[in-house]
Each structure stands twice: as structure tokens, then as C-alpha cells.
């Protein structure tokens, strides 16, 4: 795999899922190193685009370490019938970022004993995908995203790639909250249709 353009490996969705299964089932470190080369640059990119006052850009490499360690530890629980490697890594990454941000506020407001695994409880994700087709359509998301109207693309970029709440987006863009909400909803609807039917509405 070409490490200088790591995103090129992502389109090969199935091969990453296979690697993740190998890591989970046989604790294969070579497979893990391959996963690292595919995902670490994206995780670092994610961390940089999510940087804010609670989550400084200097924490980017820390996030890479945390996410990839979690990937190693949790790989045995990966079930390809429930999600692709990309989605699974996305949720691990999201949880690690929230966890890193929570650490500073826990110092300020006390520990409630609830951690990210309690909030996004994987044990409850007991709904296998009803259509295998949906999993394959995931690969279309990237291309479909590019076809969205600019305003919806921007809204979903803020949501997914910057991890912003709608009110933060409204504050940053100067748009009314209602406008942000409707743009996000419309963008989501088109992406969902794409996932279900494989075709852009």
C-alpha cells in the first residue's frame, strides 16, 4: 500500500475489513501495521480538522496512538456483518476524541463514572445490517458527498469532519440555527438514500 497517499487504500473497503478481522482473530501484527498505515494518516487528519480549545492540534499524534491502540484492543469485537472497517474505525475515533475532551472537563466538574463506552454502548448494537448491499454502498458515500450542493456539503463537513454541534456551526458561519439544521437534514437525507439504494437522489 502506498503510504504517501493513504486515502487511496480506503476505497478498498473489503480488504481493510479483512485486515481488521485478521487482527481480531489471530492478533496478526503485520495486518495491524497495514491497518495503521491506512488509518493513522486519516486519524491524524481527523484530529487536525477537529482541533479546538479543548482539543489542541498538538493532541493529534496522541489521538492516533489512542485510536490505534483501541483498534488493536477491540478488534476481536469487530463483526463485519454489522459494519465495515471504516465505520467501525470512525466510531472508535469519535469515542477517543470525546474521551480526550472529557478528561479536561472531568478535572473541572468531577467524575460521574460514565465513560464513552457507556454512552455509545457497543454491546447493544445487536442489529446486523438487514441488507448486505448497504455495506457495499458505503463506498459510494465519498463520491455522493462530492455531488451534494455546496451548502449541504459544508454543513456535513462541519458535522462529521469537524465534530461541531449545530449551534457551534451557526456561530462560526453566522447562519441562523434553523438554516444549519435544515441543510444538515437535507444532506443527511440524500446520503441515506444513497446508502439504501446505491443511487444519488
Amino acid at each position, binding site marked *: 500500500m502506498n503510504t504517501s497517499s493513504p*486515502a487511496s487504500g480506503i476505497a478498498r473497503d473489503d480488504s481493510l475489513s479483512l485486515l481488521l478481522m485478521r487482527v481480531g482473530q489471530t492478533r496478526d501484527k503485520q495486518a495491524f501495521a497495514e491497518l495503521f498505515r491506512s488509518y493513522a494518516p486519516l486519524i491524524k487528519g481527523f484530529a487536525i480538522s477537529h482541533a479546538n480549545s479543548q482539543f489542541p492540534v498538538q493532541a493529534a499524534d496522541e489521538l492516533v496512538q489512542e485510536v490505534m491502540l483501541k483498534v488493536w484492543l*477491540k478488534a476481536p469485537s469487530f463483526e463485519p456483518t454489522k459494519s465495515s472497517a471504516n465505520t467501525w474505525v470512525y466510531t472508535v475515533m469519535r469515542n477517543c476524541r470525546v474521551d480526550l475532551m472529557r478528561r479536561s472537563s472531568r478535572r473541572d*466538574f468531577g467524575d460521574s463514572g460514565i465513560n464513552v463506552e457507556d454512552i455509545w454502548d457497543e454491546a447493544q448494537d445487536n442489529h446486523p445490517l438487514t441488507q448486505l448491499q448497504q455495506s457495499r454502498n458505503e463506498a459510494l458515500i465519498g463520491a455522493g458527498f462530492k455531488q451534494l450542493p455546496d451548502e449541504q456539503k459544508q454543513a456535513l463537513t462541519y458535522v462529521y469532519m469537524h465534530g461541531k454541534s449545530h449551534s457551534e456551526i451557526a456561530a462560526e458561519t453566522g447562519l441562523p440555527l434553523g438554516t444549519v439544521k435544515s441543510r444538515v437534514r437535507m444532506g443527511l437525507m440524500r446520503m441515506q438514500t444513497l446508502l439504501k439504494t446505491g443511487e444519488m437522489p
Partner: protein
Amino acid sequence: MIQHHPDDNLLVEFASGGLAWGLCLLVSAHLEKCHSCKLKIQMQERIGGGLLCQLAAAEPAPDSLATLLAKIDGEAPSPATLLPQPPPAGPRQAGYPRVLNKLLHHNPAMKWQRISRGLRACRLITGQQRYEICLHHITRGQQVHQHDHGGLEITLVLQGSFSDAQGIYHAGDFVTRHPGQVHRPTASQNEDCLCLSAVEAPAQLTSIFGRLLNPFLRFRPA
């Protein structure tokens, strides 16, 4: 049958990790009982997974993989640590969402306060400051004072049911009220109603008088 759900905007904030921690607790508790919202979250997470490759990649620190492999060799965690942990012992109630039971476990000294006739509240420590997270108990048949709120108010019905001018809400229902939506909840006649609620910190508390009148605005985030 759950009739009232978080809207898609709130769900996608949850799925993408942008939602305030206090509200995450309530959404998580709702999801535990709500299959349809759970499916929506899975769909939204898949969009997140699909958008991964849209991120601008950045080269990790040169020693990153070697550091990690050394860490993995050092730790060698036993498979047992990977299994889901059993719920903690402590004050918990059958039928409550797991996340609430865990929260109750860390709030052993629960102090119920009488707010008004038929209404009691117990503030929970949740490690955040934007939302006041409380259990509210309304005695059967009792009506809560009419109130507005300075910010968002979300109520998750845990047991029993209550109604207001907009509808009737049963266990599992996720009721969202925005500022300006004045309401006057009444518990149903046959059963006490228990709710988990999150009330946003008002940007400004306008008057002492208003605060005294408003039982939901005695704001003390934790």
C-alpha cells in the same frame, strides 16, 4: 410504543460526537429502548465511515507505529479485559436504562427536594456544567406549575406517563421543549411519573422573581 424521539439533527450530533455530554446521557438512555433511533444512528455512523476518505490525510509522527507496537507488546492484555464489563453493583432499578443505573451508582447520596406539591426533584452529578440533569417525580394526578425555560429542556419518561397541552408521553418517550414553549405537565391518574431531564443553563437568569416561580430553573449544574 415509543412515540416521541430525538430529531435527526440531535441524533447526528450524537453520532458524530458533537453533542453536549449532558444530552448524550439522555439520548443514550433513549436509544437503549428505541430500535428505530438506534438504526438511524447506525446509518449516520455509516455516513461518517463513508466520509473518512474525504479527510485530508496527515502523516503521523515517524516513530508512531514503532511506539504503538512496543506498547502493545508491553501490555499484552488478556482477552478478559475486552469483554463487556458487568453493570456495577449499587442502587439500581430493573427496567432503568443501563446508563442511568451507572449514573445512580455514582450518585449514592441522592437528595430528593420537594419543588412544589406533587413534584420532587433529585439532581445528579454528571461531570459537566451545561445541563442540569435531574430525576423528576410527579405524584399521580398532580399537575406541575406552568413553566417556560431559559434554554432547551429534554425529558425522558422512565416510568408512568405525563401529559401537557401538546400530548401524552409514556416510558421511553423523549420530549423536547425549546425556550418559549410554555407547558404544564400532569402525571396520569393511575401511576406516579418518573422522568430523567436535562435543562440547559439559561444564558441569563432574568429576575429573582422569575426564578422563584420557575421550579425548573433552580439551576445548579454538576
